[in-house]
C-alpha cells in the first residue's frame, strides 16, 4: 500500500484534522483504493502537454479603483463564534 498509517497522520496534521485510530485505518484503506485507481493517469504520456488550470482564455481582470461600501463591523462580526469589541476573539497564541 502506497499510504501508510504514518502518512495518514501526517496529512491529517497538514489538513488540521484530528482522526481517531479507527478513522486512520479507514482513511488509509480509502486513500489507497482511490490512489490505485488514479494511477491510471500514468498510462498516458503527457511529456509535451501544457497543464490546464483554467478553461476560459481570461487573464488579468482589472477593475477601476473606485471605493465602494464595505461590510460594517457589526455585520462582519455577526457570525463570529466569539468576539470582543470589533475583533474576532480566539484562544491565546503567544505565551
Amino acid at each position, binding site marked *: 500500500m502506497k*499510504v501508510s498509517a504514518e*502518512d*495518514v497522520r501526517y*496529512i*491529517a496534521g*497538514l*489538513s*488540521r*484534522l*484530528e*482522526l481517531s485510530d479507527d*478513522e486512520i485505518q479507514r*482513511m488509509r484503506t*480509502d*486513500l489507497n*483504493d*482511490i*490512489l490505485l*485507481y*488514479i494511477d*491510471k*493517469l*500514468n*498510462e*498516458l504520456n*503527457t511529456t509535451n*502537454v*501544457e*497543464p*490546464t*488550470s*483554467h*478553461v*476560459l482564455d*481570461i487573464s488579468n*481582470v482589472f*477593475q477601476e479603483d473606485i471605493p465602494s461600501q464595505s*461590510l460594517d463591523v457589526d*455585520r*462582519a462580526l*455577526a*457570525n*463570529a*463564534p*466569539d468576539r470582543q469589541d470589533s475583533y*474576532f476573539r*480566539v*484562544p*491565546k*497564541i503567544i505565551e
Partner: protein
Amino acid sequence: MDIARLNINELRLLLDKKEVSVKEVSEYYLDRIDKLNPRLCAYLITTNSNAEKMIDKAQKRIDNKQSLNLTGIPLAIKDNICTEGILTTCASRILYNFIPPYESTATKRLLEQDYILLGKTNLDEFAMGSSTENSAFCVTKNPWDLETVPGGSSGGSAAAVAADMCVAALGSDTGGSIRQPASFCGVVGLKPTYGRVSRYGLVAFASSLDQIGPITKCVKDSAIILKTISGNDASDSTSAPVSVPDYEDSLGRDIKGIRVGIPKEYFIDGMDKEVEKVIKDAINHLISLGAEPIEISLPHTEYAVATYYIIATSEASSNLARFDGVKYGFRRHGKDLMDMYLKTRSEGFGAEVKRRIMLGTYALSSGYYDAYYKKAQEVRTLLKTDFEKAFKNVDLILTPTSPTVAFKIGEKSNNPLQMYLSDIFTISINLAGLPAISIPCGFAHDMPVGLQIIGRYFEEPLILQVAYAYEQSTNWHQKRPILD
C-alpha cells in the same frame, strides 16, 4: 386547475391576469412542502417568515403591471448559495448557524425581479457527493421511489422540482451535481458554460469547475432562468465578459441538419442495458426530427474520473481551509488555537468531506505535486482537446447523463470509489468547462432516464433549441411521481 403542475410562463399568465395572487401561490407551495417534506427531505429550511415581504413586493410589481419573467414565481435555492439574512449551511455541521451578510449574484438577479424564495434545499455536504446521502442533516428521497437516492449533490433541488414543491430551483454543478440528479428525478438540469453565471456567493468547492444552473420542469423554464442569472459580474473575476443572448429565441427553431456526435466511449460495457435502449431511442427520435448523427470518439474519457478526483479535491482542500471556527460557523473550544482548529474541523466536517480534504492535501503535498496535481492538469488538457477536435465536425454531442437509473439508498455509501464512478458521463464536461443539459427521455426499471446534450462554449442556445425540439415532440417531461 392544479397550481403544482404549472411552469413559469403558465403561472406568469395567471398572476398577471390576477386569477391567482402571489400570496395564494406561495401559500399553496408552502403547504405542499409542509405536507411532503417530512417524507422527502428536499428542503432544509423554508422561508415562511421572510416570504411575506417578498410576496408583498412581487404583488405590488404585478399590480403596477411591471412584472418581469420571475416576479412572484416561487423557487427553491440549493443551500450552498448565499442568501442574505437567511441560513445557508451547505448541509454541513460546520456552517449549521451561518447567516450570510451578503447575497449571491445569481440570487440577487432573481431578487431584482422579485421572485419568491420558498426555501433552501438539501445537498451532499459542501456539494461533495452523488446521492445527497452525505448531508449532515437528512437524506433526501427520490420522489419516484422513496427507497432510492435523488442523485447529488443538488438532490434536494431536483427532488423539490420533481415533486412539484417549487416551480423551479437553482443547483450547482462541479462534476455533474445538476445533471445527474435531474436525470435521476426526471427533470431538466442545465450546467452552463464555466463563467456564464457568476460564482459570487456560491460557497466554493472546486473553483475551476463549479457553476450555478437551473433545475426545471421544462426546457423553456431553463432558458428563462438562465437568461436571468447569467452575465459578467465584477465580484467574480472568472465570470465571462460575454454578452447574454435571449435564450428563449432559439426555442421552436427547426433542428434539421444539426450534426449530433455520438461518442462511442459513452456506450460502454457494464452500462445498464435498459438505460442504453432508452438513450438510443431518444437519439433516434432526434434523428427523425432531422438531426444528423455522426459517430465520434472522445478517447480520453476513461481518464476523466481519476483526473477529476485529483483536481476537485486539491481545490477543495484549499477552499475549505477557511473553515476554522474563527469567523463564522461551528467552533469547538480547545486548549490553544491549534487544538481549537483541530477539534472544530474534526467535529464540523463529515466523513466524505474529510476524505476529500485528505486526498487533496496529499495530492498537493511536497513531493507529490508533480505526480498528481500537475499530471491531472495535463490530462485535463487532453480531455479538453478531445472535445475541441470533436466539435470541429459536430454541433452537439449526445450521451446518457448517467450509466444507470437512481440507485438504492445505502447501496454505494460505503464505497467511495463506486460512488465516484457514477459521475463517469458528466465529469469530463466540467473539466472542459463546456455547457450541457440533462432532459427526461424515458424510463428504465420504472425510474427516469436523462439524455445529456453537450455544446460548444457559450452555445447554450443550440443546446436549448435541440432539447426543446425533443421535449415538445415527446411527453416525458409531463410525467410526475405519485405522492398524494
